């Protein structure tokens, strides 16, 4: 193993130790009366501002938990989603106009925006 290998290893470790905190701002959620599950019709892959990659698989089921200023908050029914920076937070996707625009962090009661929104097409789950 060369000195270069150890230099790369050390740099990666230091960068990993210095991950930035997940960007978020406090928000208030208005509970939703919607009670029918929604299904993602296609897969969505995206990269968080912190550099971590995430995806939502086609067929993932959600319930509309409520609404915040940025869109509707979708609580996953059988899956878990997290956003990650210096720390990891459970996160519910926020959808607006067929686009995934960010995440609602239920513990922090905050909205974490996605700099580059991606398609998130949903349909009512068939009866």
């Amino acid at each position, binding site marked *: 193993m060369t000195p270069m290998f150890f230099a790369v*290893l*050390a740099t*990666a*470790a*230091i960068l*990993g*130790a210095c991950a930035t905190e997940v960007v978020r701002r406090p928000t208030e959620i208005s509970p939703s009366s919607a009670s029918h599950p929604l299904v993602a019709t296609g897969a969505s892959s995206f990269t968080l501002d912190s550099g971590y990659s995430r995806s939502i698989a086609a067929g993932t089921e959600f319930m509309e938990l409520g609404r915040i200023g940025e869109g509707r908050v979708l609580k996953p029914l*059988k*899956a*878990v989603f*997290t956003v990650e920076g*210096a*720390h*990891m*937070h*459970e996160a519910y996707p926020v959808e607006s106009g067929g686009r995934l625009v960010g995440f609602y*962090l*239920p*513990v*922090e009661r905050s909205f974490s925006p996605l700099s580059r929104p991606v398609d998130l097409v949903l349909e009512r789950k068939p009866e």
Partner: protein
Amino acid sequence: MNCTKLLPALLLSLAIAGCASGPKHSELASAIPALKAGEGRIYFYRSNSMLGAAVQPTVSLNGNVVGDSKPGGFFFVDAKAGPMEVTTATEVEKKLTFTLEPRQTRYVRTVIGMGVFMGRVYPELVDPTEGEAELRQMSYIGSALKK
């Protein structure tokens, strides 16, 4: 004595000694208590990898130490529903936050990562199906259960 041959053997024996060796989840199923009203359950576990096996930090839930992160080991905590914060005490503290609902079961896997001076262990929230499947391979390292 040839150190180049001795060192790997020493490291291997240290790693094996550090791995969990209690009963499997299926062997304990009947002894695991039912959840109380208003509580949920969190399973904590760590894959049985020899990578960083000697790094075994304590795991804290909402500021209280609830167990250790040991390769191949699992334990569980029943907690009142609400916001949860999990931390592990290693070189760099990485928190995990999530919600726990009444009667809900959550799975938290502790994972070894690369640190500057040593491996660091951090918690991550796992899908229920994945957590349930992985838990079957783990050995119980929590406090004694009443049968």
